[in-house]
């Protein structure tokens, strides 16, 4: 008995710093958050970017954090001095697009982020995507109505309701109630299956997300093969979203939205 107490005490003591540091990180993040918002409101977007990036380093990531970070990058890039520097001289546009994508990945239903992403993309020379199948678009827009976990909650509630209706069907004495229970249960089974499928689809979309954003501050060149001597395919600007396929040395193979493939310097793109 005494040994058990000793071991338990040891475990608790060993856990303390872990718990402590986690709590500490949270308070630092909260301070950074306030600081970042204050800096943004004062128009000091450079400081806002630093604060929000710090929170991301601490691991306290959320859709709102990425959204604010993207906004700060976008505003910082717009804040240039005419004659001296171009807008988005340090790749801020690329970073803004990147962080809007990250925010939307955590919360596909975040309407503000989608709106701002549209505005940011207007500044890039991104190509139009190949039009998708109608069913795929419908499925995707349905899926993006909430997060994967949102669909999990929907599926669990629907499951509970289904079971309740099954019980009604089995136990009710009056035939009207039994009929209602039966058909409603069948309907809800469909809802359960759909929402589980949407939750899984959402999760695979996030985990299998192979997109990247060009973050290089100037125009970069996409070559036909992974060396600079090969033919130049395209010159995407910062903020162009591509899919990343594979890496060879310093080069990464990418696919543009319209299906065109090429190789870009790995340091010029960042994975979402």
């Amino acid at each position, binding site marked *: 008995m005494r040994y058990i107490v000793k071991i338990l005490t040891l475990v608790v003591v060993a856990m303390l710093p872990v718990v402590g540091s986690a709590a500490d990180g949270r308070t630092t993040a909260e301070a950074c958050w306030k600081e970042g918002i204050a800096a943004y409101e004062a128009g000091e977007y450079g400081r806002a970017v630093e604060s929000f990036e710090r929170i991301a380093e601490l691991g306290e990531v959320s859709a709102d954090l990425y959204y604010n970070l993207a906004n700060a990058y976008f505003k910082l890039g717009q804040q240039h*001095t005419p004659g001296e520097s171009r807008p988005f001289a340090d790749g801020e546009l690329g970073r803004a697009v990147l962080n809007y994508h990250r925010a939307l990945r955590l919360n596909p239903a975040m309407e503000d982020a989608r709106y701002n992403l549209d505005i940011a993309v207007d500044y890039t020379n991104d190509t139009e995507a190949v039009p998708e199948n109608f069913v795929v678009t419908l499925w995707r827009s349905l899926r993006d109505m909430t997060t994967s976990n949102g669909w999990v909650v929907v599926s669990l509630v629907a499951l509970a309701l289904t079971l309740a209706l099954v019980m009604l069907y089995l136990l009710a004495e009056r035939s009207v109630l039994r009929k209602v229970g039966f058909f409603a249960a069948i309907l809800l089974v469909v809802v359960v299956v759909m929402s589980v499928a949407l939750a899984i689809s959402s999760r695979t979309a996030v985990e299998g997300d192979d997109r990247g954003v060009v973050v290089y501050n100037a125009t970069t060149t996409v070559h036909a093969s992974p060396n600079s001597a090969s033919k130049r395919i395209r010159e995407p600007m910062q903020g162009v979203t591509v899919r990343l396929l594979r890496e060879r040395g310093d080069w990464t193979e990418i696919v543009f939205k319209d299906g065109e493939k090429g190789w870009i310097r790995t340091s010029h793109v960042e994975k979402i």
Partner: protein
Amino acid sequence: MKVLFRFILVLVALISSSVAWGQVSFTVDAPALTALGQPFRVEFSVDAEPERDSFKAPSFEGFEVLAGPSVSTGHSIQFVNGKQSSSYNCSYTFVLLPSESGTYTIGSASIKVDGKSYTTKPLPIEVIAEKGGAGSTERTTEQRPESRIAKDDILLKLLVSETEVYKGESIRAWLVLYTRVNIDSIESLDMPSFDGFWSQELTFDNTPSREQVNGRVYEAYKIKELLLSPQQSGKIVIPATTMSLLAQVVVEDKRHFDPIFGGRQIYHVQRELKTQPITINVKEFPAGAPASFNGAVGSFRLTSRMPQSEIESNTADQMEITITGSGNLKFIAPPTLSLPESFEKYDTKVVDNVKLAASGASGSITYTYPFVARSAGEFHIDPVLFSYFDPATGQYHTLATEAATITVTDDGTSVAAPVVGGYAGFGGTMRQLDRDIRYIHTDKLPRRAAEMMVLTPLYWLVVVAIVASFVVAYVLLRKRIRDNRNVVARRMKRADKVAVQRLRMAQRSMEGGNRHAFYEEMLRAMWGYISDKFNIPVSNLTKETIREVLYRRGVAADVAEQFCEIISRSEEAQYAPSTEGDMGEVYAFAAEVISKIEDVVKR
């Protein structure tokens, strides 16, 4: 009267003659620069008749007088529009030969006109020793006239005032022809197009001057003068200017000596001249330009005339901004004036009054911003900012007009204001002014994004827990329902037995003569019977519910009525002091009614 008139006439004559004296000018003319061994002329001229022998020449120290003074006089009378004017000119010319290099001064000469003496200003003359001796004049033995003109006898140069400038700053460029021989005519002149510059020709003084180039003295003729304003930054090259001209060569020909013309022959020699290309380094503006900087370079002042502070709606007014100064005025974009949305704006009127000079453009530009206030209210007009770059100090300056508040009073038609342009007034559609990203989210720091739960062990655990809890609930509920059903069935079976038992207890009370207890037992038996038989709590029972329940179970209405009558009679008799009504009769009646109900209700 006549005397006075005559006096005035004399006075006028005196004044006019004194004016004539005042106008006498006595000047000296000589080249300011000359080469050693080259004779030159010095001419003293006076524009009035001098007194005889009153001219005193200065001492020509440092020069050898080759000839002079040769006197020439001229007198001309002109009639212009019926007015007579006369001019007189007298000049004394010397030919001097510099004997040593250095700067010498020709002293003052003096002359007397009408008893008054005039002197010339001392004139400094620079004498230089030319390289290569006396130049082309030595080579008289050469036969071909083309070779009589050395390559450096005629030069063409494009000169610029500066080669390092800021974009928009203006520089002066002038084309000069230097020559040591006579020029007959210029055949062609091909100026470059000055790409990268905004160029404007200037008017200039085209009197030739003597200038020293590479240690030699030339006559310099200015051919063109331009004001250039670079429009792009970086190194801009002004390409070469080419010129083709005819020069005169005078050859003393001994073979064809002419007694009258002295055997001189004049040849025309064609020459092609070319300037050196010039590179102008146009610097970018330094960092830290204000947001309102729009490329204005120079030095400016800003004045404005504000609109009236109170106007009626639907009336026109305007704001005027004037930029005065020197610099690239022609290239200044109108400063942006942001007026409230309900103000109808019209095209900005630009009036410029810019003069070009060798130092650059200067003057003023006035921008007029007309508007019509369409709706009533108090409107704030932000100051108009104008920034310029001063190349002299290398700094930016920002000028601003005052902020203004305009009160627009309602003229009574604001609401029904006509829809003009994009603004539809009240009740119209809203116009999208601009688009920008939405604001940041300022709530508390959100929780860290949750892991995705679907298909994880936790998820399965929750699913299994939900299913299991329902299965358990189902099993329990089913059992309970079944048990419940059994209890009811048993109770119903027992119902008449209980009633019989109660009736017996009532019979005992009746035998004991206890009226009150009898009726109490009777009531209990009746209520309890119905309660157990039809599974209705006693508290919910009334006579009405009993009638209803019995009717629903197919018991005849009169039987139900009898049942209720027994209850009524029992209730009345319970506390009644009289012995009215027979207890035995009630008892038998109750037993009969219950057995009747049993007959019908029994399955």
